[in-house]
């Protein structure tokens, strides 16, 4: 026990002496540097590993931040797109409302009952050929001839009026045409395209004069194959083509017909 205490006390004394005298040793800095330099060789792998793990951590943190930022921007972009769409829709609606004019049906001749009728709006009221005519928001026909104070409108049920349309649920394109006897048909639809009863039909973007998205009606009847790979469907128009007393006509504007 005594030897242990002697050695311990000697070690403590030397340690205390070093601690007290070290600030006065000018060469100590050189020894510290030398120790650091010598140990830097075996410590090198640990330094590399530490730098690697730090870089990895920083990279993953940056990636995580960027991912969060991307998600935030995506969400913000989606919201802005919705706001923009709403604004554009509101603008279009306001423009269309401003251009809508009520017209009274003044003549519907029995021999062309399902083909045309006359309205009390003409060139003087801003009506031009080809403009769409509505009833209760649904397309009922388009202006076929215009005079100064009246116009003739060709009905959807007319066999000579062909309108490019789209089935909204499937985005399938086709042509709506009447049979001249009160029915409206959707033609040129390829077979087995999943068209079902009740699907909505509206005007397509491919028309030169009619704006896209004007509702026409919905699929109402069974398909009848033409034999050439295409199917014809019966359309139930949204407008009451049999009871037309007043309609709305879209007055001419260059902006909507672009």
């Amino acid at each position, binding site marked *: *026990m005594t030897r*242990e205490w002697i050695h311990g006390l000697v070690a403590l004394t030397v340690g205390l002496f*070093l601690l007290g005298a070290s600030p006065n040793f000018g060469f100590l800095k050189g020894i*510290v540097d030398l120790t*650091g330099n010598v140990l830097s060789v075996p*410590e090198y792998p640990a330094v590399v590993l530490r730098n690697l793990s730090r870089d990895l951590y920083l990279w993953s943190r940056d990636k995580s931040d960027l991912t969060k930022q991307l998600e935030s921007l995506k969400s913000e972009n989606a919201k802005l797109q919705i706001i923009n769409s709403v604004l554009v829709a509101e603008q279009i609606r306001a423009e269309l409302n401003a251009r809508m004019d009520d017209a009274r049906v003044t003549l519907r001749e029995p021999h062309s009952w399902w083909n045309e009728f006359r309205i009390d709006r003409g060139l003087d009221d801003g009506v031009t050929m080809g403009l769409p005519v509505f009833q209760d928001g649904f397309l009922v026909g388009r202006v076929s001839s215009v005079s100064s104070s009246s116009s003739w409108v060709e009905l959807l049920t007319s066999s000579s009026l062909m309108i490019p349309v789209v089935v909204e649920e499937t985005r399938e394109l086709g042509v709506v045409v009447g049979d001249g006897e009160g029915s409206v048909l959707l033609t040129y639809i390829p077979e087995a395209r999943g068209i079902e009863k009740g699907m909505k039909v509206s005007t397509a973007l491919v028309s030169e004069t009619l704006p896209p998205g004007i509702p026409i009606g919905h699929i109402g009847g069974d398909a009848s194959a033409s034999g050439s790979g295409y199917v014809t469907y019966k359309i139930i128009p949204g407008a009451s083509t049999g009871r037309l007393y007043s309609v709305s006509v879209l007055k001419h504007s260059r902006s909507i017909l672009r």
Partner: protein
Amino acid sequence: MMHVVCWFVQDLLSVLTWGTMQVPEVFLLSLVSRLLTQDRETNLPVIWWAFAGGLFWDLRWVGIPGFFTLNYVCVVMVVIWVWNTLPVSGRTLPVIFFLFWAAQVIPSVSSLLLPGRPVGDSKWTFFLVQQGCVVPLALLGVFFFVRDMKGRNA
């Protein structure tokens, strides 16, 4: 040789975790383990191993020779004193665990006084993280002690 390896392991751990935590005193753990398991004749070299290890640690990490030298020698002396004072029947596993744990706490607490160390709450964060590593190490020390005792009694 084992003490050199332990010192170097502690040094590498310090390099790896520099600025994030205070590393456990692996070197001191090896010294205490030797004090508790070997015969008393080996105590003298352990004192000087503590002195040399502490001095090198000061030169490598602290820059104030004598600081950890004193710490390590003090810890070794305290452990020798407690161990030799205790009767054999009192050398229970909780006491051994306490000795291992105390050997870690003394240098750790004193190192908090060093200039240039983290300030404020992070000082205690450093200390607590180290203590979280020390408990398993102390348990490991107890395990080696028990294994050594079983080997001797076999």
